[in-house]
């Protein structure tokens, strides 16, 4: 298992996506080299507290590539220090980025990619067709005429280069209420761009309107028809469809927490540690930041205990405990905390409930239709042998 350690290198971004949960983005909080170094020194000098086999050094923002000089320096230092200390993570690490893709082609980013390509994962977020993408993913600065300035064209031009460098590149799509009518066309569009793996999730925040679940189900069924009738299911994947979702869960044997908050670690520009980035102040609408330590004093292990003992049943309301389609229904610990009636991570937010149920119905339709087709074509056995697995999308 890998430890995920996230540097929030900046809280700035070129975009102002409408569904972005980062309510406190700003242009002032860039991580300094001194803070980054102090965080690295703390982490690497406490090897006994970080026993995971490998590590994913994650960089997020805002938009992380806006701070490419700092990131390059951090990564060079990490490599040097892991080697110098003979740390068990040396040669068992990855650098990971989620980027809006706008700066992907720039010389500094490209130089960084070439230098670190063997230990690098980069995901570019593109939401689908131009109209779907530009519905939410707009620049902070409007067009001169005052209209919204979508980012699609500045992202899509970098997709071929990205796929050339990361042939298995997957993209992450986020669905909010206004996006629902464009799901089908967007996934097919991403396939047409050469992206074979599309990971989608609905936002966990309470943004849903009455009737959204019906629209969502309809879109997913239309998409199911398109994927199956178009034969995409052999080489392409969409995380909406999974054979493992929509089943009841055993209260004892399947009582694990969904989210990895607390097992992960995030550090921000002020040198504060968080159980995940979602607990930093810029991510929270209602609650205070949930700080578990800092680069000077280290991690307060008492503050990690609630996260490491969290289980599904204790935080779930009765309707979730007895839900007949519970499997695959995700939650975000940070959103749970932010939406909770008290200052707790033990109250599961259920804004996503109807959307999950809609997904389960469409998912059932997808697999029934696909397997019937494969049976009739005598292809089922071969399909099952070769089918690609899509990891569940958690956040």
């Amino acid at each position, binding site marked *: 298992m890998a430890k995920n350690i996230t540097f929030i290198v900046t809280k700035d971004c070129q975009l102002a996506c409408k569904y972005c949960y980062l309510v406190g983005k700003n242009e002032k909080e860039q991580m300094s080299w001194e803070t980054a170094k102090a965080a690295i020194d703390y982490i690497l000098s406490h090897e006994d507290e970080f026993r995971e086999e490998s590590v994913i050094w994650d960089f997020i923002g805002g938009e992380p590539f806006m701070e490419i000089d700092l990131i390059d320096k951090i990564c060079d230092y990490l490599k040097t220090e892991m080697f110098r200390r003979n740390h068990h993570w040396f040669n068992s690490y990855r650098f990971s980025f989620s980027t809006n893709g706008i700066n992907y082609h720039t010389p500094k980013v490209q130089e960084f990619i070439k230098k670190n390509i063997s230990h690098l994962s980069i995901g570019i977020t593109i939401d689908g067709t131009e109209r779907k993408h530009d519905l939410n993913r707009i620049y902070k600065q409007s067009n001169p005429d005052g209209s919204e300035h979508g980012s699609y064209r500045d992202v899509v031009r970098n997709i071929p280069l990205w796929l050339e460098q990361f042939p298995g590149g997957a993209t992450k799509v986020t669905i909010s209420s206004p996006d629902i009518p464009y799901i089908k066309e967007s996934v097919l569009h991403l396939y047409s761009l050469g992206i074979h793996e599309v990971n989608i999730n609905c936002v966990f925040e309470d943004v849903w309107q009455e009737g959204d679940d019906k629209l969502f189900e309809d879109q997913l069924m239309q998409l199911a028809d398109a994927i199956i009738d178009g034969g995409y299911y052999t080489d392409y994947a969409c995380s909406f469809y999974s054979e493992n979702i929509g089943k009841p869960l055993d209260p004892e044997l399947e*009582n*694990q927490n969904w989210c990895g908050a607390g097992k992960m670690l995030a550090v921000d520009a002020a040198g504060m540690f968080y159980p995940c980035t979602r607990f930093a102040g810029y991510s929270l609408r209602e609650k205070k930041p949930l700080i578990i330590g800092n680069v000077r004093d280290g991690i307060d292990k008492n503050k990690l205990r609630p996260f490491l003992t*969290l289980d599904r049943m204790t935080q779930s309301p009765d309707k979730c405990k007895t839900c007949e389609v519970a499997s695959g229904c995700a939650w975000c610990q940070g959103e749970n905390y932010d939406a909770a009636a008290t*200052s*707790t*991570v*033990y*109250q599961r937010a259920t804004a996503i409930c109807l959307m999950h149920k809609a997904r389960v119905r469409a998912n059932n339709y997808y697999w029934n239709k696909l397997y019937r087709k494969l049976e009739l074509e005598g292809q089922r056995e071969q399909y099952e042998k070769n089918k690609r697995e899509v990891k569940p999308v958690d956040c």
Partner: protein
Amino acid sequence: MLQYLVILLDDTSTSYCHYGVNKKERRLISLDHLRQGIRFGMVENLMIQFVYPDYALPQEYLDVIDTIDHSNIKPMAVLDNDTDIVVLNSWDYDASKLKDAVVVLRTGWKQLNENHGMLKDLLAVVQRLNVVITDVERMTDSDREQYKTVLASLGKEVEQLYVDGKSPQFNLLTDRMMLTAMNNCNAGDTTITLAPNGKFYTCPAFYYEEESNSVGDLDSGLDIKNKQLYRLDHAPICRKCDAWQCRRCTWLNRKTTLEVNTPSHEQCVAAHLERNASRDLMLSLRSKGTFLPDKEEIKELTYLDPFEIATQWK
């Protein structure tokens, strides 16, 4: 289900638990709030416990208090025949005045280590002694080792009292032997507190430390959000634990781990040292003859903090 209502009669009412009283100005609860609080306790069928400051109350307050069956928690300074629980906030006390009393002794680690020898005489005269460690969350490695020694020493004293035919009640050593299940503070679950400002809190500590975090008031009633988190079945570490004498202080939980249902490492270790000392005491008493034959032996454990094995429970 609620069973107890604690009413703080004054902002300077004595602490009888882990928290400190950070309000220095006297402010009596208003007579109107006092009457309403008593009425609330009556209609909700709650046992009322009044917590007194260190000065005499006006007669009109005593008259109102006397309108309901209740218990009185008083500091040593106002100890009288009407006291049900007397609180000692220092080691400077006269044990002869505490004959057959139910006593709460509040102490820090340092003072306990220095003065624990005095407890022998106190245990010999009181009906019951609760020692409350006021800085349990600041336990150092040295405190832990000394606490182990202190408990072993006190165990010998308690054992001798039993041998002498007495039945001392001492929260740190005898409660675990007598219990058959968790017996915790249960603030927010079975107990609620009315503060002098007319608002409800899950316990007095929350009034002193997070005054804005009330859980209702006398006009609108109780409104404990996420009430289930105060119950044992919603405490992942505690519900599997057998340190049944632990106070399981939700305020200390909140202070140290940010969650009312999750204890700190220090609270768990302290409770397990007490549990293990109770085990040694029980074994020793049984080696001398029949002792609590209906009670199961306290098992030997390989850990002091159940968090260490918590991941195996999931």
